[in-house]
Protein backbone atom coordinates (compact mmCIF):
# COMPACT_ATOMS: atom_id res chain seq x y z
CA UNK A 1 0.00 0.00 0.00
CA UNK A 2 1.07 3.58 -0.63
CA UNK A 3 1.37 5.73 2.44
CA UNK A 4 4.47 7.62 1.35
CA UNK A 5 4.38 11.39 1.47
CA UNK A 6 4.99 13.89 -1.30
CA UNK A 7 8.65 14.26 -2.18
CA UNK A 8 10.50 16.96 -0.33
CA UNK A 9 13.95 18.48 -0.92
CA UNK A 10 16.01 17.21 2.01
CA UNK A 11 17.40 20.47 3.30
CA UNK A 12 14.14 22.44 3.39
CA UNK A 13 12.75 22.45 6.93
CA UNK A 14 9.06 21.64 7.38
CA UNK A 15 8.57 24.75 9.48
CA UNK A 16 10.84 27.73 9.93
CA UNK A 17 9.76 30.53 12.27
CA UNK A 18 11.88 33.62 12.93
CA UNK A 19 10.71 36.15 15.50
CA UNK A 20 7.08 35.15 14.95
CA UNK A 21 4.50 37.03 17.02
CA UNK A 22 0.74 37.26 17.12
CA UNK A 23 -1.11 40.09 18.84
CA UNK A 24 -4.88 39.96 19.23
CA UNK A 25 -6.84 43.17 19.66
CA UNK A 26 -5.56 46.73 19.40
CA UNK A 27 -3.88 49.33 21.61
CA UNK A 28 -4.97 49.09 25.25
CA UNK A 29 -6.74 45.78 24.74
CA UNK A 30 -3.86 44.19 22.81
CA UNK A 31 -2.84 40.72 23.98
CA UNK A 32 0.41 39.09 22.88
CA UNK A 33 -0.66 35.49 22.28
CA UNK A 34 2.72 34.59 20.82
CA UNK A 35 5.92 36.66 20.85
CA UNK A 36 9.43 36.21 19.46
CA UNK A 37 9.16 32.55 18.50
CA UNK A 38 12.20 31.11 16.71
CA UNK A 39 11.65 27.49 15.76
CA UNK A 40 12.86 25.20 13.02
CA UNK A 41 11.29 21.80 12.48
CA UNK A 42 13.09 19.45 10.12
CA UNK A 43 11.26 17.36 7.55
CA UNK A 44 10.09 14.16 9.20
CA UNK A 45 10.69 15.46 12.71
CA UNK A 46 8.09 14.97 15.47
CA UNK A 47 7.91 18.08 17.66
CA UNK A 48 5.54 18.60 20.58
CA UNK A 49 4.52 22.02 21.83
CA UNK A 50 3.79 21.83 25.53
CA UNK A 51 2.83 24.41 28.12
CA UNK A 52 0.04 25.60 30.39
CA UNK A 53 -3.25 26.93 29.02
CA UNK A 54 -2.86 30.29 27.31
CA UNK A 55 0.81 29.84 26.44
CA UNK A 56 0.08 30.28 22.76
CA UNK A 57 0.82 26.73 21.64
CA UNK A 58 -2.49 26.39 19.80
CA UNK A 59 -2.10 29.89 18.37
CA UNK A 60 1.35 28.99 17.04
CA UNK A 61 -0.12 25.90 15.39
CA UNK A 62 -2.91 27.98 13.84
CA UNK A 63 -0.30 30.38 12.45
CA UNK A 64 1.54 27.49 10.81
CA UNK A 65 -1.79 26.27 9.41
CA UNK A 66 -2.60 29.76 8.06
CA UNK A 67 -5.83 29.80 10.05
CA UNK A 68 -4.52 33.02 11.59
CA UNK A 69 -1.87 35.41 10.26
CA UNK A 70 1.19 36.38 12.33
CA UNK A 71 1.54 40.05 13.23
CA UNK A 72 5.35 39.89 13.48
CA UNK A 73 8.28 37.89 12.13
CA UNK A 74 8.49 35.48 9.21
CA UNK A 75 7.03 32.03 8.98
CA UNK A 76 7.72 29.47 6.27
CA UNK A 77 6.28 26.03 5.66
CA UNK A 78 8.48 23.95 3.38
CA UNK A 79 10.16 27.16 2.27
CA UNK A 80 6.96 28.91 1.20
CA UNK A 81 4.36 31.10 2.81
CA UNK A 82 1.85 29.34 5.10
CA UNK A 83 -0.91 30.45 2.72
CA UNK A 84 0.71 28.74 -0.26
CA UNK A 85 1.39 25.67 1.88
CA UNK A 86 -2.28 25.57 2.90
CA UNK A 87 -3.56 25.94 -0.64
CA UNK A 88 -1.08 23.30 -1.86
CA UNK A 89 -2.19 20.91 0.90
CA UNK A 90 1.28 20.59 2.39
CA UNK A 91 -0.19 19.81 5.78
CA UNK A 92 -2.99 17.75 7.28
CA UNK A 93 -4.68 18.92 10.45
CA UNK A 94 -6.54 17.38 13.41
CA UNK A 95 -8.10 19.11 16.39
CA UNK A 96 -9.14 18.14 19.92
CA UNK A 97 -12.66 17.50 18.66
CA UNK A 98 -12.78 15.06 15.78
CA UNK A 99 -14.87 17.54 13.80
CA UNK A 100 -16.39 14.89 11.53
CA UNK A 101 -19.34 15.85 9.38
CA UNK A 102 -22.24 13.92 10.98
CA UNK A 103 -24.05 13.28 7.69
CA UNK A 104 -21.05 11.54 6.13
CA UNK A 105 -19.94 7.96 6.67
CA UNK A 106 -16.43 7.09 7.87
CA UNK A 107 -14.99 6.72 4.36
CA UNK A 108 -16.86 9.78 3.09
CA UNK A 109 -15.38 11.83 5.93
CA UNK A 110 -11.88 10.57 5.17
CA UNK A 111 -12.37 11.35 1.47
CA UNK A 112 -13.66 14.90 2.08
CA UNK A 113 -10.36 16.71 1.38
CA UNK A 114 -9.83 14.60 -1.76
CA UNK A 115 -13.36 15.36 -2.92
CA UNK A 116 -12.78 19.10 -2.44
CA UNK A 117 -9.66 18.89 -4.58
CA UNK A 118 -11.34 17.11 -7.45
CA UNK A 119 -9.73 13.69 -7.04
CA UNK A 120 -11.76 11.23 -9.20
CA UNK A 121 -14.27 9.09 -7.33
CA UNK A 122 -12.59 5.70 -7.80
CA UNK A 123 -9.21 7.01 -6.70
CA UNK A 124 -10.48 8.74 -3.58
CA UNK A 125 -12.65 5.75 -2.62
CA UNK A 126 -9.61 3.49 -2.84
CA UNK A 127 -7.48 5.89 -0.81
CA UNK A 128 -10.21 6.28 1.85
CA UNK A 129 -10.47 2.48 2.14
CA UNK A 130 -6.72 2.20 2.64
CA UNK A 131 -6.73 4.90 5.30
CA UNK A 132 -9.72 3.39 7.12
CA UNK A 133 -7.72 0.17 7.16
CA UNK A 134 -4.60 1.99 8.39
CA UNK A 135 -6.41 3.38 11.44
CA UNK A 136 -8.13 0.03 12.07
CA UNK A 137 -11.65 1.05 11.06
CA UNK A 138 -12.10 -1.07 7.93
CA UNK A 139 -15.11 -2.79 9.55
CA UNK A 140 -16.75 0.56 10.26
CA UNK A 141 -16.34 2.12 6.82
CA UNK A 142 -20.04 2.89 6.34
CA UNK A 143 -20.82 3.87 9.93
CA UNK A 144 -21.82 7.45 10.74
CA UNK A 145 -19.88 9.44 13.35
CA UNK A 146 -22.69 9.17 15.92
CA UNK A 147 -22.29 5.39 15.83
CA UNK A 148 -18.59 5.58 16.78
CA UNK A 149 -16.84 5.98 20.14
CA UNK A 150 -14.76 9.09 20.81
CA UNK A 151 -11.51 7.22 20.11
CA UNK A 152 -12.85 5.88 16.81
CA UNK A 153 -13.99 9.36 15.76
CA UNK A 154 -10.53 10.68 16.50
CA UNK A 155 -8.96 7.91 14.40
CA UNK A 156 -11.20 8.92 11.50
CA UNK A 157 -10.01 12.51 11.96
CA UNK A 158 -6.39 11.35 11.80
CA UNK A 159 -7.06 9.28 8.69
CA UNK A 160 -8.69 12.34 7.12
CA UNK A 161 -5.63 14.44 8.00
CA UNK A 162 -3.48 11.87 6.17
CA UNK A 163 -5.68 11.77 3.06
CA UNK A 164 -3.61 14.20 1.00
CA UNK A 165 -0.34 12.42 1.94
CA UNK A 166 0.85 15.57 3.71
CA UNK A 167 4.51 16.11 4.56
CA UNK A 168 3.41 17.84 7.75
CA UNK A 169 0.77 16.90 10.31
CA UNK A 170 -0.60 19.57 12.62
CA UNK A 171 -2.35 18.15 15.68
CA UNK A 172 -3.96 20.28 18.38
CA UNK A 173 -4.48 18.08 21.46
CA UNK A 174 -6.03 15.37 19.30
CA UNK A 175 -6.32 12.97 22.25
CA UNK A 176 -7.29 15.60 24.83
CA UNK A 177 -10.90 14.46 25.08
CA UNK A 178 -10.14 10.73 25.40
CA UNK A 179 -9.84 8.59 28.51
CA UNK A 180 -6.36 7.58 29.64
CA UNK A 181 -6.43 4.00 28.28
CA UNK A 182 -7.76 4.97 24.87
CA UNK A 183 -5.28 7.77 24.86
CA UNK A 184 -2.23 5.55 25.34
CA UNK A 185 -3.44 3.17 22.67
CA UNK A 186 -3.97 6.07 20.27
CA UNK A 187 -0.48 7.39 21.01
CA UNK A 188 1.07 4.04 20.11
CA UNK A 189 -1.02 3.96 16.94
CA UNK A 190 -0.05 7.49 15.97
CA UNK A 191 3.64 6.64 16.52
CA UNK A 192 3.22 3.65 14.21
CA UNK A 193 1.38 5.63 11.54
CA UNK A 194 3.85 8.52 11.59
CA UNK A 195 6.75 6.09 11.33
CA UNK A 196 5.15 4.63 8.22
CA UNK A 197 4.37 7.94 6.53
CA UNK A 198 7.55 9.81 7.45
CA UNK A 199 5.67 13.08 7.86
CA UNK A 200 6.82 15.85 10.16
CA UNK A 201 4.45 16.48 13.07
CA UNK A 202 3.64 19.52 15.18
CA UNK A 203 1.80 18.11 18.17
CA UNK A 204 0.16 20.41 20.72
CA UNK A 205 -0.47 18.83 24.12
CA UNK A 206 -0.38 19.52 27.81
CA UNK A 207 0.48 15.98 28.78
CA UNK A 208 4.19 15.55 29.51
CA UNK A 209 4.31 11.72 29.12
CA UNK A 210 2.40 12.01 25.83
CA UNK A 211 4.85 14.59 24.49
CA UNK A 212 7.87 12.54 25.52
CA UNK A 213 6.52 9.22 24.25
CA UNK A 214 5.77 10.60 20.78
CA UNK A 215 8.35 13.30 20.08
CA UNK A 216 11.87 13.69 18.81
CA UNK A 217 11.91 17.09 20.48
CA UNK A 218 9.68 18.75 23.08
CA UNK A 219 9.29 22.52 22.87
CA UNK A 220 8.27 24.07 26.20
CA UNK A 221 6.26 27.30 26.14
CA UNK A 222 5.14 29.73 28.83
CA UNK A 223 2.31 32.28 28.82
CA UNK A 224 2.03 36.11 28.81
CA UNK A 225 3.39 36.55 26.25
CA UNK A 226 3.42 33.06 24.73
CA UNK A 227 7.06 32.20 24.00
CA UNK A 228 9.47 29.28 23.88
CA UNK A 229 11.35 28.85 27.15
CA UNK A 230 13.13 25.52 26.61
CA UNK A 231 13.64 22.69 24.16
CA UNK A 232 14.24 19.11 25.25
CA UNK A 233 15.64 16.45 22.92
CA UNK A 234 14.08 13.01 23.46
CA UNK A 235 16.74 10.25 23.24
CA UNK A 236 14.34 7.36 22.68
CA UNK A 237 15.25 6.46 19.10
CA UNK A 238 12.97 6.07 16.10
CA UNK A 239 10.94 3.08 17.28
CA UNK A 240 8.26 3.96 19.85
CA UNK A 241 6.75 0.90 21.50
CA UNK A 242 4.70 0.54 24.69
CA UNK A 243 7.70 -0.81 26.61
CA UNK A 244 9.42 2.55 26.33
CA UNK A 245 7.02 3.93 28.91
CA UNK A 246 8.78 1.81 31.57
CA UNK A 247 12.33 2.73 30.55
CA UNK A 248 14.65 4.91 32.67
CA UNK A 249 15.31 7.21 29.66
CA UNK A 250 11.58 7.84 29.42
CA UNK A 251 11.31 8.84 33.08
CA UNK A 252 14.46 10.93 32.90
CA UNK A 253 13.14 12.88 29.91
CA UNK A 254 9.73 13.31 31.54
CA UNK A 255 11.46 14.81 34.58
CA UNK A 256 13.57 17.04 32.38
CA UNK A 257 10.49 18.39 30.56
CA UNK A 258 8.69 18.86 33.86
CA UNK A 259 11.59 20.88 35.26
CA UNK A 260 11.70 23.01 32.13
CA UNK A 261 7.95 23.51 32.34
CA UNK A 262 7.91 24.62 35.95
CA UNK A 263 11.30 26.28 35.99
CA UNK A 264 11.95 24.55 39.33
CA UNK A 265 13.61 21.41 40.72
CA UNK A 266 11.79 18.14 40.24
CA UNK A 267 10.98 17.81 43.92
CA UNK A 268 8.73 20.85 43.91
CA UNK A 269 7.19 20.04 40.58
CA UNK A 270 6.16 16.63 41.88
CA UNK A 271 3.94 18.21 44.52
CA UNK A 272 1.32 18.94 41.92
Amino acid at each position, binding site marked *: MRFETKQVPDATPAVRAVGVGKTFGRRAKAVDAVAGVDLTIAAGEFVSLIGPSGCGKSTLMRLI*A*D*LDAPTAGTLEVFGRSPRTA*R*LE*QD*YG*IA*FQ*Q*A*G*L*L*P*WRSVVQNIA*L*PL*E*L*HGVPYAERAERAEQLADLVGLADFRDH*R*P*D*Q*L*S*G*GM*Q*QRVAIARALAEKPRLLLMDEPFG*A*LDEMTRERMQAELARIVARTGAAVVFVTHSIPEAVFLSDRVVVMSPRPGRITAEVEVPLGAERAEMLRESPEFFRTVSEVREALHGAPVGRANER
Partner: protein
Amino acid sequence: MRRALPWVWGVIGVLAVVAIWELYKWLGPADGLVLGAIQGQAGSGLRILPRTGDLNMPHVWDMFARLGQDNGAGTPVLWVSVLAALGITLGISAIGLVIGLVVGVALALVMQRWRIVEWGILPWIVVSQTVPLIAFAPIIARMGTQIDKAGVAWPGWLSVAVIASYLAFFPIAVGALRGLGSPEAIHVDLLRSYGAGYGQTLRKLRLPASVPYLLPALRLGATSAVVGAVVGEVSIGLPGGLGRMIIQLAQSASADPALPYGPIFGAVLVGLIAAGSVALLGLILKNYRRGEAVA
Protein backbone atom coordinates in the same frame (compact mmCIF):
# COMPACT_ATOMS: atom_id res chain seq x y z
CA MET B 1 -45.63 -0.70 18.94
CA ARG B 2 -43.48 2.34 19.74
CA ARG B 3 -43.93 3.69 16.25
CA ALA B 4 -47.71 3.30 16.31
CA LEU B 5 -48.08 5.26 19.53
CA PRO B 6 -47.95 8.79 18.03
CA TRP B 7 -50.58 7.74 15.49
CA VAL B 8 -52.84 6.34 18.19
CA TRP B 9 -52.62 9.60 20.13
CA GLY B 10 -53.21 11.59 16.95
CA VAL B 11 -56.45 9.71 16.27
CA ILE B 12 -57.48 10.11 19.92
CA GLY B 13 -56.85 13.87 19.62
CA VAL B 14 -59.11 14.17 16.55
CA LEU B 15 -61.82 12.05 18.18
CA ALA B 16 -61.61 14.22 21.31
CA VAL B 17 -62.44 17.34 19.27
CA VAL B 18 -65.44 15.55 17.72
CA ALA B 19 -66.55 14.36 21.18
CA ILE B 20 -66.30 17.87 22.68
CA TRP B 21 -68.33 19.29 19.76
CA GLU B 22 -71.07 16.70 20.11
CA LEU B 23 -71.04 16.81 23.92
CA TYR B 24 -71.54 20.57 23.98
CA LYS B 25 -74.23 20.33 21.29
CA TRP B 26 -75.99 17.78 23.49
CA LEU B 27 -75.57 19.44 26.91
CA GLY B 28 -75.13 23.15 26.13
CA PRO B 29 -78.02 25.68 26.39
CA ALA B 30 -80.08 25.75 23.21
CA ASP B 31 -79.84 29.53 22.94
CA GLY B 32 -76.23 29.72 24.02
CA LEU B 33 -75.16 32.34 26.56
CA VAL B 34 -75.12 36.10 25.97
CA LEU B 35 -73.89 38.55 28.60
CA GLY B 36 -75.41 42.02 28.97
CA ALA B 37 -78.05 41.65 26.28
CA ILE B 38 -80.66 44.44 26.05
CA GLN B 39 -84.27 43.23 25.83
CA GLY B 40 -85.77 43.49 22.39
CA GLN B 41 -82.51 44.60 20.74
CA ALA B 42 -81.16 41.93 18.39
CA GLY B 43 -77.42 41.34 18.36
CA SER B 44 -76.74 43.28 21.56
CA GLY B 45 -74.54 41.95 24.36
CA LEU B 46 -71.49 39.72 24.29
CA ARG B 47 -72.01 36.13 23.15
CA ILE B 48 -69.72 33.79 25.05
CA LEU B 49 -71.39 30.45 24.23
CA PRO B 50 -72.82 29.58 20.80
CA ARG B 51 -76.32 28.24 20.15
CA THR B 52 -76.46 24.48 19.95
CA GLY B 53 -79.25 24.05 17.37
CA ASP B 54 -78.62 22.12 14.15
CA LEU B 55 -78.55 25.45 12.28
CA ASN B 56 -75.53 26.70 14.21
CA MET B 57 -73.80 23.45 15.09
CA PRO B 58 -74.57 20.66 12.66
CA HIS B 59 -73.71 17.13 13.73
CA VAL B 60 -70.25 16.00 12.66
CA TRP B 61 -71.78 13.02 10.84
CA ASP B 62 -74.09 15.41 8.98
CA MET B 63 -71.07 17.36 7.76
CA PHE B 64 -69.57 14.17 6.35
CA ALA B 65 -72.89 12.94 4.99
CA ARG B 66 -73.31 16.27 3.17
CA LEU B 67 -70.04 15.58 1.30
CA GLY B 68 -71.80 12.68 -0.42
CA GLN B 69 -74.73 14.75 -1.72
CA ASP B 70 -74.92 17.04 -4.71
CA ASN B 71 -75.88 20.72 -4.88
CA GLY B 72 -79.14 20.26 -6.74
CA ALA B 73 -79.87 18.35 -9.92
CA GLY B 74 -77.06 18.22 -12.46
CA THR B 75 -74.28 19.42 -10.11
CA PRO B 76 -71.49 17.12 -8.97
CA VAL B 77 -71.46 15.52 -5.55
CA LEU B 78 -69.99 17.93 -2.94
CA TRP B 79 -66.78 16.01 -2.27
CA VAL B 80 -66.00 16.00 -5.98
CA SER B 81 -66.26 19.80 -6.22
CA VAL B 82 -64.30 20.13 -2.97
CA LEU B 83 -61.52 17.95 -4.41
CA ALA B 84 -61.47 20.00 -7.62
CA ALA B 85 -61.14 23.24 -5.61
CA LEU B 86 -58.58 21.55 -3.35
CA GLY B 87 -56.43 20.74 -6.37
CA ILE B 88 -56.35 24.38 -7.42
CA THR B 89 -55.58 25.70 -3.92
CA LEU B 90 -52.94 23.01 -3.39
CA GLY B 91 -51.25 23.94 -6.67
CA ILE B 92 -51.26 27.65 -5.84
CA SER B 93 -49.93 26.92 -2.33
CA ALA B 94 -47.13 24.78 -3.78
CA ILE B 95 -46.10 27.50 -6.24
CA GLY B 96 -46.24 30.04 -3.39
CA LEU B 97 -44.07 27.79 -1.24
CA VAL B 98 -41.50 27.38 -4.02
CA ILE B 99 -41.33 31.17 -4.54
CA GLY B 100 -41.06 31.61 -0.75
CA LEU B 101 -38.31 28.98 -0.59
CA VAL B 102 -36.26 30.61 -3.34
CA VAL B 103 -36.68 34.13 -1.93
CA GLY B 104 -36.17 33.01 1.68
CA VAL B 105 -33.01 31.01 0.98
CA ALA B 106 -31.62 33.76 -1.27
CA LEU B 107 -32.15 36.33 1.49
CA ALA B 108 -30.55 34.00 4.05
CA LEU B 109 -27.53 33.47 1.77
CA VAL B 110 -26.78 37.18 1.36
CA MET B 111 -27.44 37.82 5.06
CA GLN B 112 -25.09 35.01 6.07
CA ARG B 113 -22.40 36.15 3.64
CA TRP B 114 -22.42 39.81 4.61
CA ARG B 115 -23.13 40.72 8.22
CA ILE B 116 -24.01 44.26 7.22
CA VAL B 117 -26.78 43.00 4.93
CA GLU B 118 -28.22 41.02 7.84
CA TRP B 119 -28.31 44.16 9.99
CA GLY B 120 -29.92 46.07 7.14
CA ILE B 121 -32.48 43.53 5.93
CA LEU B 122 -33.52 41.40 8.90
CA PRO B 123 -35.57 44.16 10.62
CA TRP B 124 -37.48 44.73 7.35
CA ILE B 125 -38.17 41.02 7.01
CA VAL B 126 -39.65 41.00 10.51
CA VAL B 127 -41.66 44.18 9.85
CA SER B 128 -42.99 42.71 6.59
CA GLN B 129 -44.93 40.13 8.57
CA THR B 130 -46.81 42.77 10.53
CA VAL B 131 -48.51 44.09 7.39
CA PRO B 132 -52.01 42.55 7.33
CA LEU B 133 -52.56 40.24 4.39
CA ILE B 134 -55.92 41.80 3.45
CA ALA B 135 -54.23 45.22 3.13
CA PHE B 136 -51.46 43.77 1.06
CA ALA B 137 -53.42 41.45 -1.24
CA PRO B 138 -55.21 44.12 -3.33
CA ILE B 139 -51.88 45.86 -4.01
CA ILE B 140 -50.43 42.62 -5.39
CA ALA B 141 -53.58 42.02 -7.43
CA ARG B 142 -53.40 45.54 -8.91
CA MET B 143 -49.70 45.19 -9.73
CA GLY B 144 -50.46 41.87 -11.39
CA THR B 145 -53.17 43.42 -13.56
CA GLN B 146 -50.83 46.23 -14.60
CA ILE B 147 -48.08 43.79 -15.55
CA ASP B 148 -50.68 41.78 -17.47
CA LYS B 149 -51.83 44.92 -19.31
CA ALA B 150 -48.23 45.77 -20.14
CA GLY B 151 -48.09 42.59 -22.18
CA VAL B 152 -46.47 40.10 -19.82
CA ALA B 153 -48.99 37.38 -19.03
CA TRP B 154 -49.86 37.51 -15.33
CA PRO B 155 -52.79 35.25 -14.46
CA GLY B 156 -54.80 35.82 -11.27
CA TRP B 157 -53.52 32.67 -9.62
CA LEU B 158 -49.99 34.04 -9.82
CA SER B 159 -51.03 36.98 -7.64
CA VAL B 160 -52.44 34.53 -5.09
CA ALA B 161 -49.22 32.49 -5.22
CA VAL B 162 -47.21 35.66 -4.55
CA ILE B 163 -49.46 36.42 -1.57
CA ALA B 164 -48.92 32.86 -0.30
CA SER B 165 -45.16 33.21 -0.76
CA TYR B 166 -45.27 36.43 1.25
CA LEU B 167 -46.27 34.40 4.31
CA ALA B 168 -44.08 31.41 3.44
CA PHE B 169 -40.72 33.13 2.90
CA PHE B 170 -40.47 34.49 6.45
CA PRO B 171 -39.92 31.31 8.50
CA ILE B 172 -37.74 29.95 5.68
CA ALA B 173 -35.48 33.02 5.61
CA VAL B 174 -35.08 32.99 9.39
CA GLY B 175 -34.55 29.22 9.59
CA ALA B 176 -32.10 29.13 6.68
CA LEU B 177 -30.10 32.00 8.17
CA ARG B 178 -29.72 30.12 11.45
CA GLY B 179 -28.90 26.90 9.62
CA LEU B 180 -26.26 28.44 7.36
CA GLY B 181 -24.57 29.91 10.42
CA SER B 182 -24.80 26.67 12.40
CA PRO B 183 -21.50 24.92 11.48
CA GLU B 184 -19.03 24.99 14.34
CA ALA B 185 -15.80 26.98 14.12
CA ILE B 186 -13.83 23.73 13.87
CA HIS B 187 -15.66 22.72 10.70
CA VAL B 188 -15.17 26.14 9.14
CA ASP B 189 -11.44 26.02 10.03
CA LEU B 190 -11.18 22.54 8.60
CA LEU B 191 -12.66 23.56 5.25
CA ARG B 192 -10.35 26.57 5.20
CA SER B 193 -7.38 24.30 5.85
CA TYR B 194 -8.39 22.37 2.73
CA GLY B 195 -8.28 25.61 0.79
CA ALA B 196 -12.03 25.39 0.12
CA GLY B 197 -13.61 28.60 -1.18
CA TYR B 198 -17.01 30.08 -0.41
CA GLY B 199 -18.90 27.93 -2.92
CA GLN B 200 -17.37 24.65 -1.74
CA THR B 201 -17.88 25.54 1.91
CA LEU B 202 -21.50 26.30 1.09
CA ARG B 203 -22.12 23.04 -0.77
CA LYS B 204 -20.18 20.66 1.44
CA LEU B 205 -20.76 22.25 4.84
CA ARG B 206 -23.28 25.08 5.24
CA LEU B 207 -26.16 23.72 3.18
CA PRO B 208 -26.03 20.15 4.59
CA ALA B 209 -25.64 21.55 8.11
CA SER B 210 -28.72 23.74 7.67
CA VAL B 211 -31.08 20.84 6.90
CA PRO B 212 -32.14 20.35 10.56
CA TYR B 213 -33.06 24.06 10.66
CA LEU B 214 -34.64 24.19 7.21
CA LEU B 215 -37.09 21.33 7.70
CA PRO B 216 -39.12 22.86 10.57
CA ALA B 217 -38.93 26.22 8.78
CA LEU B 218 -40.25 24.57 5.65
CA ARG B 219 -43.14 22.98 7.56
CA LEU B 220 -44.11 26.36 8.98
CA GLY B 221 -43.69 27.89 5.53
CA ALA B 222 -45.82 25.21 3.87
CA THR B 223 -48.76 25.65 6.24
CA SER B 224 -48.42 29.44 6.02
CA ALA B 225 -48.53 29.16 2.23
CA VAL B 226 -51.84 27.29 2.49
CA VAL B 227 -53.32 29.98 4.75
CA GLY B 228 -51.97 32.64 2.39
CA ALA B 229 -53.45 30.93 -0.65
CA VAL B 230 -56.93 30.56 0.90
CA VAL B 231 -56.98 34.15 2.21
CA GLY B 232 -55.48 35.40 -1.04
CA GLU B 233 -58.18 33.69 -3.11
CA VAL B 234 -60.83 35.34 -0.96
CA SER B 235 -59.35 38.81 -0.99
CA ILE B 236 -58.68 39.09 -4.72
CA GLY B 237 -61.78 37.06 -5.60
CA LEU B 238 -60.06 34.31 -7.56
CA PRO B 239 -62.68 31.68 -8.51
CA GLY B 240 -62.12 27.92 -8.47
CA GLY B 241 -60.19 27.49 -5.24
CA LEU B 242 -61.23 26.57 -1.70
CA GLY B 243 -61.15 30.18 -0.45
CA ARG B 244 -63.91 31.34 -2.77
CA MET B 245 -65.83 28.12 -2.22
CA ILE B 246 -65.88 28.63 1.55
CA ILE B 247 -67.28 32.17 1.12
CA GLN B 248 -69.87 31.10 -1.50
CA LEU B 249 -71.15 28.10 0.45
CA ALA B 250 -71.25 30.05 3.71
CA GLN B 251 -73.94 32.19 2.10
CA SER B 252 -76.23 29.16 1.85
CA ALA B 253 -75.41 28.09 5.42
CA SER B 254 -78.75 29.23 6.86
CA ALA B 255 -80.58 26.78 4.65
CA ASP B 256 -77.92 24.08 4.57
CA PRO B 257 -75.73 24.40 7.70
CA ALA B 258 -73.52 21.36 7.00
CA LEU B 259 -72.60 22.62 3.52
CA PRO B 260 -69.70 25.08 4.22
CA TYR B 261 -67.87 22.45 6.27
CA GLY B 262 -67.04 20.63 3.03
CA PRO B 263 -64.48 23.16 1.75
CA ILE B 264 -63.27 23.73 5.34
CA PHE B 265 -62.38 20.04 5.54
CA GLY B 266 -60.75 20.54 2.16
CA ALA B 267 -58.56 23.35 3.55
CA VAL B 268 -57.59 21.13 6.50
CA LEU B 269 -56.64 18.40 4.04
CA VAL B 270 -54.43 20.80 2.03
CA GLY B 271 -52.64 21.75 5.25
CA LEU B 272 -52.13 18.08 6.12
CA ILE B 273 -50.80 17.32 2.63
CA ALA B 274 -48.39 20.27 2.91
CA ALA B 275 -47.11 19.22 6.34
CA GLY B 276 -46.98 15.57 5.24
CA SER B 277 -44.87 16.38 2.18
CA VAL B 278 -42.33 18.15 4.37
CA ALA B 279 -42.29 15.17 6.75
CA LEU B 280 -41.62 12.93 3.74
CA LEU B 281 -38.77 15.20 2.68
CA GLY B 282 -37.41 14.87 6.22
CA LEU B 283 -37.35 11.08 5.83
CA ILE B 284 -35.45 11.37 2.55
CA LEU B 285 -32.93 13.72 4.16
CA LYS B 286 -32.64 11.78 7.42
CA ASN B 287 -28.86 11.41 7.09
CA TYR B 288 -28.49 15.16 7.39
CA ARG B 289 -30.41 15.22 10.64
CA ARG B 290 -27.95 13.30 12.76
CA GLY B 291 -26.50 15.07 15.73
CA GLU B 292 -22.80 14.47 15.98
CA ALA B 293 -22.11 12.19 18.94
CA VAL B 294 -19.95 13.78 21.59
CA ALA B 295 -16.88 11.77 22.56
